[in-house]
């Protein structure tokens, strides 16, 4: 017993020392003219590809800006916390970042977590710029902006894209009824499909409790003779669908939105062929020809073991450059000035950013307007179509 008490007290002493050190580290940074940008997103868990991509993309932008001497003598620093897509954890992460001196928040990577964070950011009055929170409420307050498309936008744009560019007229939808993101896109898609003369032959739902076995839904797709399956869902569930479609001998093309980005990682190296022919709506294609994209893909690959960036990485990168643009527009040179928050938020509706994901401008709603592109997956790479 004595021994255990001894070990316990040793552990406690060590913990106290460790906490003491980290607290010191936190205070030291706040004095300098370094803008702490706080990111929150899933770095572990089923949806971790989204968070990791955003973090890596944003880090490249931060490094580039700092290497060029910062903006108006302000250096950037990115701090990123894991929320596992959980709203409560996201709010905790937000508070941790505020303690670490965060001045601008990248909100959260996924919609549910981001909405929870907007409430906190509103109280503190800081700029929130989410790279990928696509649900409408992610920009519900005046201080909140986003880089990606909104869910309703994605539904409408997807239907437009299919009607205008593809030959398929009979569409089946498989969507996640327990997920607001999926339901939001589906509703707008169905409405726009009617306008554009697309026929919805099957609308098959699943829920978070029934997201493993899709044999009934796929059989329905086959029976209705659908020419294309619209998948407004996340990559995790889509991986199950692609695998089962193959064993069931169903060769209908699939079309998805930003949630499908990361499907190659989810499928794993053995199954890359399953994604062949899958199309997805994305504002970013890694094989695009412009120098900006080429450079980003090159740096990203060098820094992260040859990984190819997806749209989440591009969103993260663009978010950092948008913050830079806003600082330049507002002429801020002291991040500790009392009017920092109001100045940078006002500047957001005045900037035009030519990013990796297109040329963006923002209005009062906080939503970016830009063009959509679609890519087709061929042998493990995204090819623009």
């Amino acid at each position, binding site marked *: 017993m004595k021994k255990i008490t001894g070990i316990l007290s040793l552990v406690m002493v060590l913990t106290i020392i460790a906490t003491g050190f980290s607290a010191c580290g936190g205070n030291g940074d706040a004095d300098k003219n370094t803008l702490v940008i706080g990111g929150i997103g899933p770095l*572990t*868990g*089923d949806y*971790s590809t989204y968070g990791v991509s955003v973090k890596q993309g944003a880090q490249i932008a931060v490094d580039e800006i700092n290497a060029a001497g910062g903006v108006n003598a302000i250096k950037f620093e990115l701090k990123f916390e894991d929320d*596992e897509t959980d709203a409560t954890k996201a709010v905790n992460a937000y508070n941790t970042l505020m303690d670490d001196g965060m001045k601008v928040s990248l909100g959260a990577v996924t919609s549910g977590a981001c909405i929870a964070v907007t409430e906190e950011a509103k109280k503190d009055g800081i700029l929130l710029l989410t790279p990928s929170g696509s649900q409408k409420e992610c920009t519900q307050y005046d201080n909140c902006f986003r880089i990606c498309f909104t869910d309703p936008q994605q539904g409408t744009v997807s239907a437009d894209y299919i009607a205008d560019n593809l030959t398929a007229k009979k569409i089946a939808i498989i969507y996640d*009824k327990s997920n607001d993101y999926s339901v939001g896109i589906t509703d707008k898609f169905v409405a726009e499909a009617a306008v554009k003369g697309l026929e919805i032959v099957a609308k*098959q*739902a*699943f*829920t978070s*409790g*029934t997201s*493993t*076995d899709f*044999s*009934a*839904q796929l*059989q*329905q797709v*086959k*029976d209705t003779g659908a020419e294309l399956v619209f998948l407004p869902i996340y990559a*995790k569930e889509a*991986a*199950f669908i692609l*695998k*089962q479609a*193959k*064993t*069931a*001998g*169903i060769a209908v093309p699939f079309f998805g939105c930003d949630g499908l980005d990361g499907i190659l990682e*989810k*499928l*794993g*190296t*053995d*199954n890359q062929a399953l994604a062949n022919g899958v199309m997805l709506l994305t504002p970013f294609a890694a094989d695009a020809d412009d120098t900006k994209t080429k450079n980003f893909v090159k740096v990203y690959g060098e820094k992260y073991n040859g990984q190819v960036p997806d749209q989440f990485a591009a969103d993260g990168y663009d978010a950092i450059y948008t913050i830079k643009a806003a600082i330049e527009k507002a002429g801020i040179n002291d991040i500790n000035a009392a009017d920092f928050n109001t100045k940078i938020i006002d500047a957001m509706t005045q900037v035009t950013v030519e990013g990796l994901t297109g040329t963006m401008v923002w209005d009062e709603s906080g939503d970016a307007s830009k063009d959509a592109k679609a890519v087709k997956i061929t042998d493990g790479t995204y090819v623009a179509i």
Partner: protein
Amino acid sequence: MSFISNLINGLSLGSMYALIALGYTMVYGIAKMLNFAHGDVIMVGAFTMFTAAATLKFSPAISIIAGIIVCTLLGVIIEKIAYKPLRKASPLTVLITAIGVSYFLQSLALLIFGSNQKSFPMLFNFEPIRVNEDLILKSDSLMTMGVTILIMVALTLFINKTKTGRAMLAVSEDKGAAELMGVNVNKTISITFAIGSSLAAVAGLFFGLTYGFIGPYTGAMPGIKAFVAAVLGGIGNIPGAMLGGILLGVIENLSKAYISTELSDAIVFAVLIIVLLVKPTGLMGKKINEKV
């Protein structure tokens, strides 16, 4: 034609439930306890095969055997460490312990493999079988059904024809009397756990092959469904577990196909409630008069 496909998909899903339900029902019949960690043994089996085949690059046959051996040992060890000391304790204590073991296994897998889903290795090459334009059969479904039928026949023969099997029947009927007649109760319970867990490993294999991806919580939902199947068929009754599992799979898949994909679980549980209202011991359960 699509009805046949849906029926086969349902039978295949039901076969998986039946394999798992057998483990629940045998343990309940003999040890009179609900082993809620049983679902997670499936996950352990799937991860063992994943590690053997994908990480250590063993051949499919060796990987599958490794998975079955690990699960069999795991079942026996769980029984020895967690349940045997509680043989005389109240059923509630044992139930809580089983839930604890379940969480332990899930958390252990989470620590070792992380929470990302893993792609299960293709141990066999499953090409769809094209009977004609309308009817395409999934070869993984056919294999699941075929192997399950074989296992069930073997298990029935084992229980009714061998000495060990009859000892299991004797213990399930009356533990005290069996002991007086010279049956080694502890050994019989260990064998029951070993058989149940090895069947769970086979179910884990089929889960991995059919759905392609596994994670630390892979076993949770099939485990619950299989428990429902065991109750539906009459818990403690081996043919009942087979019938319950297969019925559950077919009902689930047909209600998904013809009624509603969202309500399939609600329909499954509604069927369970109706069956239990009409026949409280389950479809094949026997009524046992308790002496006061």
